[in-house]
């Protein structure tokens, strides 16, 4: 155990300030994010693979394809002769121009990650991108041979936001923060009682979302899927402790080594999910047909309200459990000092098993709710993992309330930052906050300084 001996040395402040400055600089260097374009327009411009095959006069082969379309006077119009270029790691792969129906098919050598750029100079008069910055699509992943890409055309709608837009974004941030909190509490509790930073926590999150999807896909009503998926998550948490972590603890494996094991587990399970679930993103049945309702200050969908309601209830429940119940006291005691807890008659292994069960269930719920608010993918947990890490460290490693607090702050910051900085920097904000907090207050916002002896 080492200890931070000088938490307020001047040069840490200098460094923090420097880093904050650099990062803030990069944020404002970006331009404001684009607002959502009109859903109706998007519907008029919808384009399917069958249409593309027809327009191409044959199978698409290995390609990146799409159609440029802009709604003018309520009717879709298609620009001709627009140049689309595909590159990979800086090397041009191929290019194509749109035909009179606005369709383009660019042949590619195979699956991989490509950059697709639209040459705005070749756009005919009267056509424009809604966001000129989106002329290049950064990372287009092609997994199944061919991939559709969309460039949004229409009026540039940026820069016309009112108070309601800001508050709505903040509310969506709160929603993300609450989901993150639900998903991350388990990560924090496990760290508290075992000292393990579990990279495979990401896969517990994905697992819950996928189980719910599979049940939902098989015809079970979505809301009924939730308890089943949570139960599956609890079981997964318990199993991973019983079959893996407990034996490793028994062998006295160093925590760093355990962390490496969790990385291996995470990579393996994530890719098994990819094989089984496929590379596409899917939606729950309950996610469709959602329209934003105007609540005066904010516009939210019914799902948003349900999600936030579930999160609040669950988080209050877990806080109550930790604070008031005998089990909660035992968990906190174990986190404080496992030796002491053991000597006072609490079975440490039993406590840890219970924490893993809670962890698995909460992670599953977090995954389901995130899947409901965005989409379900085989790597969604991994995408959330850095934010969860950030939340847990922000609040204070091992402090369960800290994780709640950190997650909510982070969610709101991550979403609202999109109003002021380039959306490409959304995750950067989360990570930058984490690093700055570590520099200034290493024990986290709610953490207390470590005792030593």
């Amino acid at each position, binding site marked *: 155990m080492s200890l931070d001996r000088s938490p307020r040395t001047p040069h840490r402040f200098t460094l923090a300030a420097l880093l904050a400055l650099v990062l803030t600089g990069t944020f404002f260097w970006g331009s404001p994010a684009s607002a959502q374009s009109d859903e109706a327009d998007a519907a008029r411009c919808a384009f399917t693979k069958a249409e593309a095959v027809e327009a191409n006069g044959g199978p698409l082969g290995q390609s990146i394809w799409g159609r440029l379309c802009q709604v003018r006077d309520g009717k879709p119009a298609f620009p001709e002769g627009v140049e689309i270029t595909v590159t990979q*790691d800086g090397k041009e792969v191929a290019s194509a121009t749109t035909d009179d129906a606005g369709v383009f098919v660019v042949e590619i050598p195979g699956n991989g990650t490509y950059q697709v750029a639209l040459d705005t100079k070749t756009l005919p008069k009267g056509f424009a991108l809604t966001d000129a910055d989106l002329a290049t699509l950064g990372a287009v992943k092609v997994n199944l041979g061919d991939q559709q890409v969309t460039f949004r055309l229409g009026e540039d709608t940026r820069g016309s936001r009112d108070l309601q837009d800001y508050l709505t974004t903040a509310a969506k941030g709160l929603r993300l923060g609450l989901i993150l909190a639900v998903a991350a509490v388990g990560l924090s509790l496990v760290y508290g009682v075992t000292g393990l930073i579990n990279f495979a926590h990401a896969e517990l999150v994905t697992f819950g979302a996928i189980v719910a999807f599979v049940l939902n896909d098989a015809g079970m009503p979505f809301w009924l899927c939730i308890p089943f998926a949570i139960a599956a998550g609890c079981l997964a948490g318990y199993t991973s402790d019983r079959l893996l972590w407990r034996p490793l603890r028994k062998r006295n494996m160093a925590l760093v080594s355990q962390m490496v094991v969790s990385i291996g587990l995470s990579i393996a399970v994530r*890719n098994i999910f990819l094989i089984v679930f496929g590379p596409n993103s899917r939606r729950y049945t309950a996610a469709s047909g959602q329209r934003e309702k105007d609540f005066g200050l904010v516009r939210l969908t019914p799902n948003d309200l349900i999600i936030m309601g579930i999160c609040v209830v669950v988080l209050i429940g877990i806080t109550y459990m930790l604070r008031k119940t005998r089990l909660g006291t035992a968990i906190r005691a174990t986190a404080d000092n496992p030796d002491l807890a053991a000597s006072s008659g609490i079975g440490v292994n039993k406590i840890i098993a219970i924490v893993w069960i809670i962890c698995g269930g909460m992670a599953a719920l977090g995954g389901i709710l995130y899947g409901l608010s965005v989409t379900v993918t085989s790597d969604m947990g991994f995408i959330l993992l850095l934010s969860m890490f950030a939340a847990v460290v922000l609040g204070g490693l091992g402090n369960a309330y800290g994780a709640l607090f950190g997650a909510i702050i982070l969610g709101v910051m991550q979403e609202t930052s999109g109003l002021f900085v380039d959306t490409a920097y959304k995750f950067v904000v989360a990570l930058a906050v984490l690093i700055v907090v570590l520099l200034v207050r290493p024990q986290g916002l709610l953490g207390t300084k470590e005792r030593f002896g």
Partner: protein
Amino acid sequence: MSWLGVFLLALQTALGFPAASYALAATGLNLQFGYTGLSNFGMVAFLMMGAYGMAISADRGWGIWVGFALGITAAVVLALLLGIPTLRLRADYLSVVTIATAEILRLVIAARPSADLTGAARGIGGLSSNLGFFKPNFIPEGSYGIGDDFVFNSRQLWSMLVCWTLVLLATLLIRAWVRSPWGRVLRAIREDEDAARALGKNVVVYKLQSFVIGGVIGSLAGAMIALDSGSVGPARWIAPLTFALYTVVILGGAGTVWGPVVGAVVYWFVLDFADGALNNLWFDVSDTTSGAFRLTLMGIGLMLLMVFRPQGILGNKKEAFASAR
């Protein structure tokens, strides 16, 4: 493909540039993780510094040596910026902060506003023609090897030669270091940094030195990858690359001099052989599935190694036993 073909193709990667570049990067990581116990989960950021240093230099017409200097300088600055605040804290913090920073840097590099410097998502191309990396290549044009599956062309051989030479130099340097009293302090810090402190060692300075040196070696590996492929884009520098390097280090034997080299060769051989075998046995396999299968294998391999043979191929059994106590 015949089984001999699968074998030879795997051997080609295991001796070729992929293994050489991984061996070089893993040598840097081994100093940090294997000898000093620093869990740097953002190693890929140092590779990125080296690769982009080279690419930016090529883009501006500054030449290959400026490219190396740029990459190394960036790696040193990054190591200091990350190390000074976090190396004082518990090991957990280093792991979280490094993985986060690597991802931040990748996103910043890939973001549109960075396009003037880094080419954003498109990246930077034309490195080989701008930098003349292949100019001193004395190996005559043509293909060298056995049969159709174990063949290298002149350019590949040149990349291999340069990169394996760097691996050898780096390994010999590390060997001299870890066998000196300086290396002894690093190992002591890995075992228990408070004990090292109590015996008068300035632990933070040693950790920082190890972190910087490992990072610089990582940046050289990144620069070599850039030179070999001729282009640099942001897509390659993701966390799984760091994890692959961990697999290499642990496979070969963390904290052993030649572990990274052996680890890289075996890693690439096993992965490519498994790939080929999979294609042979189960020919209806899509690229996604094959790539996912490969990573699944790596993940399971990393777990099993850590649990059942933490000392890796070259590690001392007694030493591994010691770590379990």
